[in-house]
Each structure stands twice: as structure tokens, then as C-alpha cells.
């Protein structure tokens, strides 16, 4: 049964791999453009394994932002995983310690979505199934990162092939992923204005912390809704 569960997990993962692959390649290509070596880019995909935050890290590294702020921003972008692990704990309580460690290491947006879907449909979330899904997402992620980095290494001027437009548009897409959240417009507009002003009048690394802080303060000051349960969405 274990082998068939593993294979079933892998089957579930195939469409996920196909849709995630361009982002892995994008990360690899942008990574070498922003000063990482091919090995460093692949190591980052292997250890962080969270595409959006990896690209955020690169962007900030390219702006020579202070290291602590890079780590804090990566933590902020990955913050949603806290909600994921809280929400799926009930399905994996029967795993042992080492299995839980691997389970949470491999926790991504699609991994969470599929696990909850399976758990709520009444089928057992077995470790073999989870690892089948996790493996088919993890291994190709490293491979496409490596391919992207190898290709990116050949590019002398990223502007000629339009590579420089991809990162800002990608982040714009991520921002749009949050547009159903409470206070989205005031938060995004405040962060946008705050970051541009800081960029203009203070200087490059500070636009991130100043703009983000302004947006978060606005959210904290907005009228509190009666019931606002923490929601989990794809990002």
C-alpha cells in the first residue's frame, strides 16, 4: 500500500510541477544576474524551497539591503506557512518526529492545499502519500533552478531579453494574490507611496522597511471587523 500511496501523491503533483517550473527557472536566472553563483542559487532552492521568498531575497540582495532586513522580509513573505502548519496539524498527528520534520520542511502552498483536500475528504494522509507529493515538487524545483541559473549565466545584458521586467511584475502578481484580504487597498497604497517617498528621499535599502511599516500601521489603525478569522490563500 505504501508504494501505491507514494505514486498517488506523485500523480497529484504533476500539474503543480508544470505550473511551478517557470518560477524555478526565473529564480535561477535572476539569481545569477543578482550576484549569486549557480551553486548558491541551487542551494537556496534546496534549503529555503519557497519561490516567492527566494525572489524577494534576491531583489533585496541586489539592492544591498542589510542582511537582517533580508531575513526579516523572507520571514514575512513566508509567514502564511504558520497558518498552514496550524491548519494541517490534525491530519499528520500520527507521524513520528522525523516524519513531522520532513513534512514541515516540504510544506508549500500546493502541498498544503492538497493535504487538506485529501484529509477533509476522509482519506488517510499517509506519510508515503505526503512524501510522494513532496518529492515530485521538490526535486524538479532544484532541476529547473539549475537550468535557469545555467541559462542566466549566459546572459550579458538582462535588459536586452527583458529579464528586468519579470521580477517587478512577479511581485505585482503576488500583491494581487492578497487583494481579497481586509484593508488590502489602504495597505497597498500606503506601502506604495511610503516606499516611493523613502526611495526618493532616504535611499535604496530603506524603502522596504519604511514602506512596509507604513502599510502595516495603517492596517493596525483601521476599524476592526467583528469576525475576521485568519484566512489562508495561495500566494
Amino acid at each position, binding site marked *: 500500500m505504501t508504494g501505491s500511496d507514494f505514486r498517488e501523491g506523485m500523480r497529484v503533483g504533476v500539474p503543480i510541477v508544470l505550473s511551478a517550473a517557470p518560477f524555478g527557472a526565473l529564480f535561477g536566472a535572476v539569481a545569477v544576474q543578482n550576484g549569486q553563483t549557480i551553486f548558491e542559487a541551487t542551494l537556496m532552492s534546496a534549503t529555503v524551497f519557497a519561490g516567492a521568498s527566494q525572489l524577494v531575497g534576491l531583489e533585496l540582495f541586489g539592492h544591498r539591503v542589510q542582511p537582517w532586513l533580508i531575513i526579516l522580509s523572507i520571514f514575512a513573505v513566508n509567514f502564511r506557512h504558520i497558518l498552514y502548519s496550524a491548519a494541517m496539524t490534525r491530519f499528520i498527528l500520527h507521524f513520528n518526529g522525523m516524519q513531522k520534520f520532513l513534512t514541515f520542511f516540504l510544506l508549500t502552498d500546493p502541498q498544503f492545499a492538497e493535504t487538506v483536500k485529501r484529509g477533509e475528504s476522509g482519506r488517510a494522509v499517509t506519510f508515503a502519500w505526503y512524501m510522494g507529493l513532496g518529492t515530485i515538487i521538490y526535486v524538479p524545483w532544484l532541476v529547473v533552478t539549475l537550468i535557469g541559473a545555467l541559462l542566466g549565466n549566459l546572459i550579458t545584458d538582462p535588459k536586452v531579453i*527583458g529579464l528586468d521586467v519579470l521580477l*517587478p511584475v512577479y511581485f505585482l502578481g503576488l500583491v494581487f494574490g492578497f487583494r481579497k484580504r481586509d484593508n488590502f487597498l489602504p495597505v497597498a497604497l500606503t506601502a506604495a507611496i511610503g516606499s516611493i517617498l523613502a526611495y526618493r528621499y532616504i535611499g535604496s535599502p530603506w524603502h522596504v522597511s519604511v514602506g512596509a511599516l507604513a502599510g502595516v500601521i495603517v492596517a493596525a489603525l483601521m476599524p476592526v471587523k467583528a469576525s475576521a478569522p485568519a484566512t489562508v490563500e495561495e500566494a
Partner: protein
Amino acid sequence: MDGFLHLDMLILILAAAVATFATRIGGYFLITRMKTIPPRLDAALNAVPAAVLTTLVAPNFYAGGPELKIAMAVALVVGLRFNVLTMLAAGWVVVMALRHGGGW
């Protein structure tokens, strides 16, 4: 960049990995000893990702050339209906057309 692995980059990557893993396992520890989160703190935490990500978009738009501004504007409109991959394709096509076709 030359070389294989730099110590400062290795430390940065490993710190990023630890920070990310903390978020992945954090909810497991929280769920067992959860106390209620104050509503305003909850709203602030909820706003963190959108606020941080917006600061990576807006200054690029502000500092970019006219072809980048147009491409990002087009991608924004596309994003109202379509997913991120479509936005990337649209933004890329516009920037390439303006640079190589329009001579910007």
C-alpha cells in the same frame, strides 16, 4: 559572479532557510498552546505580506524607464483577470516590443 560559494552568501542562505522553516513548523507549535491574538495585532500581521511585497513593486515602477512603466501598467490590468504567469508574459511582451520594435 565568479566562484562557487561565498561565506557571507552561505550564511545568508542558511539564515533564510532557518527563518522559512520556522514559519513552516511554527503553526504546529502554536496550535497546541494557542491563546487569542488581539484583533489589531491580527490585522497588522495579516497586512504584512501585501505591505512588504508592494514596496518591491512601487519603487521599480517609479525608477524604471517609460517602457518598464507601460509594461507594469499593462501587467496590472492583465492581473485583474488572469494569473501571475499571464501577467509575466504580458509584461515581457510589452517591454520587448517597445525596446526592440519601438526603439526605446
